């Protein structure tokens, strides 16, 4: 197991490194000059040239690259061209709202998807199934940001039950925190939950047809016990993998939703940084996002081993 984790971590690190390298060159392929953006559109050509020199942008690309790489390995993501702040510090500042929304979104998705999926599978072709399936279809058919707009209209503008904008850190209280991220989390969670619910349903249906479920019945256990003790864990095995894979969908959703709700998160920062060609921030943000993404999946894989005793990683330790 330990060897497997080490191997996977190494693999993940390589993937992130490649991603970071691609991004390094990709951002430099984006037309537009950070020096000009920084100095304002009307800055003089000399001032821009001087700043470019200052920022090290005039050096050959490979020199810039190797300098950047060596800094990365020292844990230095550089400083923002735009604000002179440390990129790491900036990212830490905006990661909290994004991760809060994504996290709560995932919790909401799971809380909706798993019970609904199970009900749907158990009450197959009954009204419960049709309702749950219908709702999940709606969930996967709406853009998350649009759900956000509708929620904002209804709950913030019309009913006024939650604040309409911004983010409040959980350090300032759990309730205000939840109030601020409830709608955004719902907006990202619903589409994600829709997909998961359908997965849960088909996975659970498959499990219900398994021989060991018949065995459990032949043992004289009651229905709910069979479902939750014998079925659930087996049904969740594929769901865990899928939940990890879908993380990309969820993270993508957060970006647009942050904008709808006016929350300063990772997605906003990334888009703003691309707009103003803030290379170090773009690179840093991409590394952080890939990092979260890759390691969340690693975490999911490891969790997978814990809920699926059949899997033994590391070649028969």
């Amino acid at each position, binding site marked *: 197991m330990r060897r497997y984790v080490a191997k996977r971590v190494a693999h993940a690190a390589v993937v992130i490194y490649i991603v970071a390298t691609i991004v390094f060159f990709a951002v430099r392929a984006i037309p537009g000059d950070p020096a000009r953006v920084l100095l304002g559109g009307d800055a003089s050509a000399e001032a821009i040239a001087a700043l470019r020199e200052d920022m090290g942008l005039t050096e050959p690309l490979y020199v810039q690259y190797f300098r950047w790489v060596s800094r990365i390995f020292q844990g230095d993501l550089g400083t923002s061209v735009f604000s002179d702040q440390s990129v790491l510090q900036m990212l830490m500042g905006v990661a909290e709202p994004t991760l809060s929304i994504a996290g709560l979104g995932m919790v909401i998705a799971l809380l909706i998807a798993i019970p609904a999926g199970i009900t749907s599978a158990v009450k197959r072709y009954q009204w419960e199934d049709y309702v749950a399936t219908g709702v999940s279809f709606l969930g996967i058919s709406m853009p998350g940001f649009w759900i956000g707009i509708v929620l904002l209209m209804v709950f913030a503008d019309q009913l006024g039950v939650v604040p309409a904008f911004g983010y409040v850190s959980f350090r300032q209280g759990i309730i205000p925190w939840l109030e601020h991220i409830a709608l955004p989390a719902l907006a990202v969670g619903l589409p994600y939950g829709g997909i998961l619910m359908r997965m849960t349903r088909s996975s659970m249906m498959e499990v219900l047809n*398994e*021989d*060991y479920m*018949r*065995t*459990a*019945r*032949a*043992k*004289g*256990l*009651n*229905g*709910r*016990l069979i479902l*939750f*003790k*014998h079925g659930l*864990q*087996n049904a969740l*095995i594929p769901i865990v993998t899928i939940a990890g894979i879908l993380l990309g969908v969820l993270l993508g959703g957060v970006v647009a939703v942050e904008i709808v709700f006016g929350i300063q998160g990772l997605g906003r920062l990334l888009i703003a940084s691309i707009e103003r060609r803030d290379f170090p921030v773009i690179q840093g943000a991409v590394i952080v996002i890939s990092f979260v993404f890759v390691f969340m999946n690693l975490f999911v894989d490891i969790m997978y081993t814990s*809920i*699926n*005793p*059949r899997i033994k990683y590391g070649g028969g330790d």
Partner: protein
Amino acid sequence: MSSSLPPNANAQQESNATASPTDGGDDPLLVVEDLHTTFSTDRGEVPAVDGVSFAIEEGEVFGVVGESGSGKSVTALSLLGLADGARVEADRVSFRDEDLLAKDERGLRAIRGNDISMIFQDPMSSLNPVMTVGEQIAEVVRHHNDIGESRSLFAELRRKYVTGTSESSASWERAVELLETVGIPDPGDRAHEYPHQLSGGMKQRVMIAQALAGDPDLIIADEPTTALDVTIEAQILNELLDLRDEFGVSIMLITHDLAVVRETCDRVAVMYAGELMETADAGTLFDDPRHPYTRGLINSIPRTDDDREWLDAIEGNVPDPTAKPSGCPFSDRCGAAFSLCGEPLVGYPAGKSGHRTWCHLYNDAVSRDGDEIDHVDEMKAKQHIEEYAAAADGVPYRPDFGSEYA
């Protein structure tokens, strides 16, 4: 009733009269009469089990043999209400004089695993892959014995996901004991393992232990050795027989393998296309197989003294269950088929007690030499058939065989 009634029909009626609740000791453990299990599919009604009757005595090993698709597994599942999506009807399915068909799910649950337990064909898929084998046995212990351990949903889930089952709990200790009983070495350690860590034979032993955990009176073993190696097969079968001897439990052994039947069973029912073909005690069936289908099956077993160049295979395939021929379902494959085969089937008794054959060759009105038909008195034959049918209809069927074990 006239004297023209078949002699055994009378006997049935009489013995039925003596079968009273107070006389349970003489009663078979399980009685099944005229069982029909029907599935509704897109392609119409499928009668998977079509009028099967049998009885199992205490302490006996009762074999049900037939090709795949003959309805033997469905018969077993029907008894416990596990045949999903099927309509189960019968004149009578009684276990220790309790009417199983009249029971609701809750009542059946009390029977399943407790009085009647099952062993399934594929131990690989029939054991839950994410639970330790110990826990799979222990939960049966808990649920069918009042040992003071909570079996609420919450307690069970906590046990599974949080605390695990305590090694010192009575249920766990009993599980380990059962593993030992079925011949698993190091049962204390093995109990903590997951099914995938065990060999096929071990897994089937676990299944057996699990089946024993509720102290059942009847174990239904559905093809318990089919998925196993031949060497393991013998061990498992011996294990089952030992258990019968040790605990006096009855075993309903479902198999497609006549060799298994010959080695283990006291009595046998041969099924084909959801219907009974022949019932007899095991010795008789092999010494004096009467039904052409039974004979076909026996002839297809390789023998050590075999001087045949080819094994005798039965030509053709099992009929499509939605389009069975009327009368004998085997008639279209039967080498001895003749004019009466389209008539409704009835069970003709043979010389030895309990030997009964559902084949019109044995109609009194048929004179023949072996399978060669000399003459058929159609009128008389049909009259006979009607009489047999009438005798069975409405009168609880009391099997007369097996009295030697009573």
